[in-house]
């Protein structure tokens, strides 16, 4: 087919393919659990069958032959499974999982114009599944067995009469179907044809819509009556339960770059409004109150609307973290089998929504931490039993969101990180080792670029994606990485990420004649100190704070700017608990919504500076990377703080 014609549809192929693959991954997990049962859940088989079929169709259209073939083979196996010609077996599920992984690789390679993976052996394995098994069982049970798991009884019969008027109001057969699905299982859905070719749709439903709902539905062409007792209850239409992920009319698919453009435009609006605020300020003194008030109210209204608009666009970009997590059980399954471990995956908070961009960026770091957990964290079943633990290790994937921060945790109940071995290896690699090695220092060591675990690199770790890259990725996204580990009890990595990258609330502060912005989400508290309260120690300064000694860093010294000191010191408290530091500035100017332009060019990247923002009056202000500054202080002044508290 003409190349330019195909090229127009490639991005849609990738996007739709990804949606089907997400459905497939989820369904395969369910199917995996069903091995050994006489019959897998028909809805799951059907869902898988449909998804592979759809991929096959689009792959064929864009002439991606490898994906078409793989999808075709898996579709054939699922058809045989659905029709009862083969039984669900472990090799079958493994064939599907391996085939799906290959399909993912194949689509990814197509996208990046990389060489296609070799699919020949996977195709013949899948092909053999149908051929072998079909011969063995064909005699016994041929043809589909009627399926009636819930033995649901049709209690209501609803007839929908479509019309152009209803269609114009958005009430179509699909809307009707989803309304009925909400009140029970749809046992049958079929079109009926009456006098003069009038078409209606009949639905048999197991649940009962309440009276008010039924009356409201009448205006939408839906007439529901209690089903005749004599009405035979048909076997549930399996496909009614399969989630039709791509029903027409309710969803539009949008290229992420279009949302980026939209966000950029909103960013420009935010800057423009800031300029308006600055221009309005001197006006107040020159106009009477009755002129000023409406101006002020309009300005406040624009701010509110702009904030809503920004949040609205941000919400569109949010997708469930589950997209990352769902891939992990396959990885765990393979690794656990290869390394002879038993691992149970626990997931919580999959519905936490974060920016689509963050999901894509976090996939590899999370994958790496999961691999590490299995390769280094979890013990074998024998070791666990000897340690008095359950033979099966637990891998925890958790997500949550609070305020503007999303948190992802990857943890295990394994042996914990062996601090002595890490210190020894760091020393051997020439990485400076601090006097006291706590969790934060340990994280620092394993994330330092020189620290290599190549010695025991195996299939599970390695792959050129080390902890240094994990942390750099998290930091580049404006997030931070924390570690908790305890010998014998386990290890947990915590990743905090900002929900959005583009626009955020910040506190503005002045040092000398320079203005800086600190993202509000990273500031725990703003404090004022008497200069006399500051204790000077050999390697830094500390101040009393909530019964502890808070290490201080003076931004003026850190950045080499002449300070204009005031009688009292102002500081931002950054970081949590023992990792907290105070960032001392000359004055805190105020709070503002800022548009983040991150500094990604390595030539202009400076530790401690996350990016820049435009205040709207032409002034460019640097945005501080609070986490990096806190780390720097801990490295230098950590010992001082401990000395002071001791």
């Amino acid at each position, binding site marked *: 087919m003409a190349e330019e014609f195909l090229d127009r549809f490639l991005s849609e192929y990738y996007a739709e393919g990804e949606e089907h693959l997400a459905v497939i991954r989820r369904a395969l997990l369910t199917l995996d659990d069903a091995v050994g049962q006489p019959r897998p859940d028909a809805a799951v088989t059907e869902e898988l069958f449909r998804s592979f079929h759809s991929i096959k169709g689009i792959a064929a259209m864009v002439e991606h032959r490898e994906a078409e073939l793989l999808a075709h083979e898996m579709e054939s196996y699922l058809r045989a499974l659905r029709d009862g010609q083969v039984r669900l077996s472990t090799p079958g599920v493994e064939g599907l999982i391996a085939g799906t992984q290959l399909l993912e690789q194949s689509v990814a390679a197509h996208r990046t114009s990389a060489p296609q993976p070799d699919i020949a052996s996977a195709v013949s394995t899948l092909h053999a599944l149908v051929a072998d098994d079909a011969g063995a069982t064909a005699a016994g049970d041929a043809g589909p067995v009627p399926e009636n798991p819930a033995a649901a009884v049709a209690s209501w019969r609803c007839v929908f009469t479509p019309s152009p008027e209803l269609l114009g109001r958005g009430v179509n057969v699909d809307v009707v179907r989803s309304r009925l699905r909400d009140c029970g299982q749809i046992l049958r859905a079929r079109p009926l044809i009456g006098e003069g*070719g009038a078409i209606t749709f009949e639905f048999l439903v197991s649940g009962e819509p309440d009276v008010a709902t039924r009356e409201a539905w009448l205006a939408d062409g839906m007439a529901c009556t209690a089903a005749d007792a004599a009405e035979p209850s048909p076997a549930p239409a399996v496909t009614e339960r399969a989630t039709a992920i791509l029903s027409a009319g309710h969803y539009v698919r949008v290229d992420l770059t279009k949302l980026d453009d939209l966000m950029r435009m909103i960013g420009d609006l935010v800057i423009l409004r800031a300029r308006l605020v600055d221009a309005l300020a001197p006006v107040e003194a020159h106009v009477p109150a009755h002129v000023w008030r409406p101006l002020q109210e309009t300005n406040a209204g624009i701010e509110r609307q702009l904030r809503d608009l920004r949040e609205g666009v941000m919400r569109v970009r949010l997708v469930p973290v589950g997209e990352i997590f769902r891939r992990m059980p396959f990885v765990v399954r393979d690794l656990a089998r290869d390394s002879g471990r038993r691992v149970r995956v626990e997931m919580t908070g999959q519905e936490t929504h974060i920016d689509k961009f963050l999901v894509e960026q976090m996939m590899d770091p999370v994958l790496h931490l999961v691999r590490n957990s299995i390769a280094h964290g979890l013990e074998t079943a024998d070791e666990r039993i000897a340690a008095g633990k359950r033979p099966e290790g637990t891998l925890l994937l958790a997500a949550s969101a609070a305020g503007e921060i999303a948190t992802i945790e990857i943890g295990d109940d394994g042996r914990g990180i062996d601090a002595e071995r890490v210190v020894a290896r760091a020393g051997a690699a020439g990485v400076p080792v601090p006097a006291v090695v706590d969790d934060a220092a340990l994280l620092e060591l394993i994330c330092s670029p020189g620290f290599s675990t190549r010695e025991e690199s195996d299939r599970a770790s390695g792959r050129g994606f080390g902890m240094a890259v994990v942390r750099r990725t998290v930091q580049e996204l404006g997030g931070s990485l924390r570690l908790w580990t305890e010998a014998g009890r386990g290890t947990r990595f915590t990743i905090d990420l900002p929900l959005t990258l583009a626009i955020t609330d910040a506190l503005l502060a002045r040092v000398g004649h320079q203005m800086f912005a600190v993202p509000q989400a990273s500031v725990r508290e703003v404090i004022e100190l008497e200069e006399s309260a500051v204790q000077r120690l050999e390697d830094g300064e500390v101040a009393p704070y909530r019964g502890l000694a808070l290490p201080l860093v003076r931004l003026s010294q850190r950045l080499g700017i002449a300070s204009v000191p005031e009688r009292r010191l102002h500081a931002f408290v950054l970081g949590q608990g023992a990792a907290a530091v105070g960032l001392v500035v000359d004055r805190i100017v105020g709070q503002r919504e800022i548009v983040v332009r991150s500094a990604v060019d390595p030539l202009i990247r400076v530790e401690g500076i996350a990016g820049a923002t435009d205040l709207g009056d032409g002034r460019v202000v640097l945005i501080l990377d609070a986490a990096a500054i806190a780390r720097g202080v801990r490295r230098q002044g950590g010992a001082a703080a401990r000395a002071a508290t001791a």
Partner: protein
Amino acid sequence: MKQILVVDDSPTIRRMVRASLARSLPAVQFLEAGSGLEAIERLAVGAISLIVLDLNMPDMHGLEVLNFVRSHQKYRHVPIIVLTTRGDEGSRTAALGAGASAYLTKPFTPEALGNEARRLFSGGDLSASA
């Protein structure tokens, strides 16, 4: 204006079908349906001059849609082009037997689909077109 109904559960395929037909049939309006029931609803509500129908859909098989359309005097003359995928050639006989006007296997070229549509439009079998 002639209305063409494109029935496929994949939005990508629907767009490809529309783009293919728009090349060879300039003055037509497209309607889309992502399921069999929606396709029949569209047929009931507006005058359709041509249906491009996928066989595998979540709620109703394309053959059921085909049989339904062909079962009533009012709709049976609407030309239907059936689309299907490789490996499903067995359904060709069934589709043609059920009254499909034409049959194409994915991948089809925009030209092949356009030619079939033009052929059906010029066949004079279009008494229902508005």
